[in-house]
């Protein structure tokens, strides 16, 4: 259970960043292993890529992209928080602007492909 002194947005942001980071770190070795197949075992890689077409695996990939996005924006948040001598209001506005532009450009991107 999350203890009472931790139940606030900044702590949730902190724990999301930590957990997504840890999970991505766990995934990295698998990632490199598959990449190495491209160099040494092309046939096995093709087999593997066919496997990734399965719906369940596709769904897991979605989770991976989600983790990456969470960690990426968590990192941007932290950089802004610690490196920018801005006021909290300016930071909120900046975060809103980034969020909005990602949404808009992301929609355009999805329509384009």
């Amino acid at each position, binding site marked *: 259970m999350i203890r009472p002194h931790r139940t606030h947005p*900044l702590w949730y942001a902190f724990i999301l960043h930590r957990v997504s980071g840890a999970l991505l770190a766990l995934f990295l070795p698998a990632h490199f292993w598959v990449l190495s197949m491209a160099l040494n075992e092309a046939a096995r890689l093709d087999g593997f890529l066919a496997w990734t077409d399965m719906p369940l695996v596709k769904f897991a990939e979605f989770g991976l992209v989600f983790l990456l996005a969470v960690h990426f924006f968590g990192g941007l948040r932290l950089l802004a928080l610690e490196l920018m*001598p801005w006021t909290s209001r300016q930071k909120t506005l900046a975060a809103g602007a980034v969020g909005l532009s990602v949404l808009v450009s992301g929609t355009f991107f999805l329509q384009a492909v």
Partner: protein
Amino acid sequence: MSSTDTRMKVSVWRGDHEGGEFQIFDVPAQDSQTVLDVVAWIQQNDDPTLSYRFACRVGMCGSCAMMVNGQPRWTCRTHVKKVLKDNCIEIGPLRNLPVIKDLAADMDPFFEKWVKAEGVFHPSKTRNDQIEEIDPASVQRVKADAGIECINCSVCYASCDTVAGNPDFLGPAALNRAWTLYNDSRDAGSRKILDAVSGAGGCHNCHSMGSCAHFCPNGLNPMDAIAGLKRATAAAFFRRRT
């Protein structure tokens, strides 16, 4: 104050630095009652051996902070109706500090860290000098003013998980004080301050979890102050190398 017949179940932590347990008291509910009122009622009407600390009762002295339902709060300005859950409240001594007895925590480590963080004024003038004029609107002064209203209550210190995990961490209040002095144009100790806050237990330990800013009863933001120190110490590091 009009009293009603309703009574509350209040769990109060009893014990000392060696350990203890919660004891349940039955306390009458009253209008506009604060958590400190509840503790005082118990001590005056039920168990005179209950130890706790307070002085001003108006949120100025910073001596009445306790854990209320697991969250650090200034009890003299926390209304019971804000924290009452299913007619129960749990009250304990501040987290991250040794307990003297019952609800009274030992504040020594907290204040020792203020001194360690160079949170003491370093005069730049003598009494024979002209009084310096300070422009309250200057950028530097606005930064200093943002952290000046600290009442040393240790609420932030009790909320901080980094303090819990690293007994050497100077903690949010001491670092907030150091940042305030660093931005005070009358203080001559900026170099000393940066050295003090960049060591092993210094500002770079902070994980920016923000519990300090969330719970500070005076609305200060020690996390921001610490971020300021992180920038200042990093800049000083590179300046010294070149």
